[in-house]
């Protein structure tokens, strides 16, 4: 019950981690089924229809329901601590964001239970995704599930932006902000400007499917390329929404475990901003073969290659940070160091794909699959593993078992390269993506087998990680405030896990790497910026949960409106009625929220003193 009503950003972070982790397992299972299907030529393991469904759900789940939420988990758990804040700007909205994401994700996956699963690919290209070709409810689940989950992401992004702009501790200027907070800041800005485009695209597709509109239906004057533009003007920034937080994590971890200040901090900041900006300028590199013409292709090709410059700056800064540092290869750093060459490989194939004429060869082949998995798995997932191992003690008060963590790294890392390295060559040899079978005798067999073995090995690595989580959770909470002993940023100055109010007294920040600076000056902790006093906290609320549920019910009702009978002899169907009930539920919750005053509550001074162990 406590968890259903919580508005505490640390608990919401844990909820995101659990839900995102769960969807990672679902998406991973789908991946493994895909790979089993492809392990030998002309295999008949799942069948063509199921393959399309698995493929679509794998991509959609991984991007929207696994990767994004785990990023949000870390951002929730860490950002207020890193900037010295007691909370996020809008705790209520924060919890609303979580519940809408979760109910959207559940709605999407209800499709498996119902048996009408989305099957037009995670890009939902028109007219394939329209009602002519996808005439069961599969793509309705895609459209509505993502729409609902997208609301959660958008309000989450706004929340982080306001938190970072308005709630930094005294002395925490923008140019003293930790890199992870910086990357979360830019990521949130990208979310703010990218997701509304997806909202419109999904709404238009929904109108086409449910209300016979003609946006993307060429026979009624609609335009299928319009979908591609709308999708990718969201979709390309989305890739940077995923990778920038990973960059932030790597910067923190490498600096901590090299016991050195991050090399080129200000160039890192500007590179992050530049990548975020360019991320919006390059969407049409996904459409070189669509027929936009040579001028458009050339411009988007060049714009894309420009991104290599700020990215290169980042890579070199990480290397220079390690250079001459006293490096410790504890598990978080192992993942971070493994990230660097892997991500570079993904970047190199990215530049290859950005050359428009060459892309005509690579397009829709396994080369593309290899490229984006090097970026998303080799980049983002290694980064997330690094961050999760790094901040686990702060979130849960327990350090993950180091031996098991090392084992996770090696199985996952080797499995990853086995799976995806050979796919470059499969692609160059002409194996198309999004196919459920290939013929014998084309020279594809061995490499596909290797790829499948690699995928199983990655699955094993994930299982070892889960075992580690279980093993760790049964031991007592014993993590010190600064478990890596070389913590540099503010989150390491407070107990693990932190008390509800984070900081008993808001700290005064005197430089970049605030905690490290105090340590260098021989101080044991931060200087407080305010006297000890009672702390005001927002009250918990069940409303966000019911609002998420309301959206879920509404989506479900509208989806089935065409199938279910009429309502009391009117034009309205039972489905519409259910949908309206769901929306009313949301509105009533909003109404309640605005009429009930939330005065919150105070945590009194003696209680804080007790937490501090009578000192202070």
């Amino acid at each position, binding site marked *: 019950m406590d968890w259903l009503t919580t508005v505490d950003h640390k608990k919401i972070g844990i909820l995101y981690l659990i839900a995102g982790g769960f969807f990672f397992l679902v998406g991973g299972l789908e991946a493994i089924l895909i790979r089993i299907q492809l392990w030998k030529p002309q295999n008949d393991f799942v069948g063509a229809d199921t393959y399309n469904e698995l493929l679509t759900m794998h991509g959609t789940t991984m991007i929207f329901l696994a990767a994004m939420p785990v990023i949000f988990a870390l951002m929730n758990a860490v950002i207020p601590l890193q900037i010295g804040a007691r909370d996020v700007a809008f705790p209520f909205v924060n919890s609303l964001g979580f519940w809408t994401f979760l109910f959207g994700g559940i709605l999407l996956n209800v499709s498996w239970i119902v048996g009408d699963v989305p099957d037009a690919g995670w890009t939902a290209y028109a007219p394939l995704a329209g009602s002519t070709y996808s005439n069961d409810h599969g793509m309705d689940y895609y459209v509505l599930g993502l729409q609902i989950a997208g609301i959660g992401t958008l309000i989450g992004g706004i929340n982080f932006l306001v938190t970072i702009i308005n709630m930094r501790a005294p002395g925490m200027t923008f140019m003293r902000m930790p890199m992870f907070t910086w990357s979360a800041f830019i990521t949130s800005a990208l979310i*703010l*400007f990218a997701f*509304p485009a997806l909202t419109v695209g999904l709404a238009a597709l929904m109108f086409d499917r449910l209300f016979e509109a*003609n*946006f993307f239906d060429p026979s009624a004057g609609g335009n299928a390329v319009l979908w591609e533009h709308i999708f990718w*003007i969201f979709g390309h920034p989305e890739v940077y929404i995923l990778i920038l937080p990973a960059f932030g994590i790597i910067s923190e971890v490498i600096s901590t475990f090299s016991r050195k200040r991050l090399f080129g901090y200000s160039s890192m900041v500007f590179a992050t901003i530049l990548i975020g900006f360019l991320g919006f300028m390059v969407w049409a590199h996904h459409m070189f073969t669509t027929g936009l013409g040579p001028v458009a292709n050339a411009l988007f090709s060049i714009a894309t290659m420009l991104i290599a410059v700020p990215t290169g700056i980042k890579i070199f800064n990480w290397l220079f940070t390690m250079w001459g540092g006293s490096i410790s290869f504890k598990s978080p750093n192992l993942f971070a160091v493994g990230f660097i060459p892997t991500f570079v490989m993904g970047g190199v194939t990215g530049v290859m794909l950005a050359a428009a004429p060459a892309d005509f060869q690579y397009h829709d082949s396994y080369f593309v699959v290899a490229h984006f998995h090097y970026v998303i798995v080799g980049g983002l997932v290694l980064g997330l593993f690094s961050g999760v191992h790094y901040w686990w003690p702060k979130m849960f008060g327990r350090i993950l078992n180091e031996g098991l963590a090392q084992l996770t790294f090696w199985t996952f890392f080797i499995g990853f390269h086995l799976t995806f390295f050979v796919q470059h060559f499969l692609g160059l040899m002409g194996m198309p993506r999004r196919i459920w079978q290939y013929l014998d005798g084309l020279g594809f067999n061995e490499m596909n087998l290797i790829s499948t073995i690699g995928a199983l090995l990655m699955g094993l690595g994930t299982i070892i990680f889960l075992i580690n989580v279980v093993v760790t959770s049964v031991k007592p909470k014993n993590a010190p405030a600064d478990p890596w002993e070389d913590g540099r940023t503010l989150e390491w100055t407070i107990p693990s896990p932190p008390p509800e109010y984070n900081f008993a007294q808001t700290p005064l920040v005197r430089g970049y790497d605030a905690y490290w600076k105090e340590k260098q000056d021989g101080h044991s902790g931060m200087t407080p910026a305010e006297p000890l006093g009672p702390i005001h906290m927002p009250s918990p609320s069940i409303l966000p949960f019911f609002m998420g549920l309301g959206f879920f019910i509404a989506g479900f009702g509208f989806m089935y409106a065409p199938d279910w009978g009429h309502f009391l002899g009117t034009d309205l169907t039972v489905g519409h009625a259910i949908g309206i009930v769901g929306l009313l539920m949301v509105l009533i919750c909003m109404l309640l929220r*605005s009429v009930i005053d939330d005065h919150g509550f105070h945590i009194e001074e003696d209680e804080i003193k007790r937490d501090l162990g009578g000192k202070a």
Partner: protein
Amino acid sequence: MSAHTHVEGHLPHEPEKATLEGRNKILGFWLFLGGETVLFGTLFAAFLALRHQVLDGPAPNELFDLKLVAYATAILLTSSLTSVFAIQAMHQHKVKSLINWLIITVVLGAGFLALEIYEFVHYLHLGHGFTTSAFSSSFYTLVGFHGAHVLFGILWITLLIIQLAKKGLTVVTAPKVYVAGMYWHFIDVVWVFIFTVVYLMGKVV
């Protein structure tokens, strides 16, 4: 934190910015409007891409009744002005006149909405249905999204009026009023673009 301290004493000149909560709300709302800009931008782009695809349905220059639209525009722009008066009244701490200006704003908004509904019904009779063509789908989606925003604004401000009547002007209610005012202006600006891009350009080409 300091939400209660000010209420009994006197309000500052700009009560909406007196607390951190208030400032957070206003900044968050500016950002939200940034997202809304992208949302409407995408709708405009879709409309521009599809506006010549009229198939058998009526073309924009046969369809649009500029006189009606001009009335609607005048009403909506006036309501923006009255919402400015509302904010000015708030800064002078005149709750009564604040509430009155808000009521006038809501009434004008409802007038606009009534004209729009009339307009849509009228077009429907001319054979311009939601499913007629790509042009009609994108027209109703763009203009309808705006209309839905107006409706939402009307409900929202009505709720605020009730709150103000019950609780008066405090550092809690002031940011809400301010933010609603921002929203109302935004809707107006979007309408100016719709008037130009949809109606005027539709008449010309």
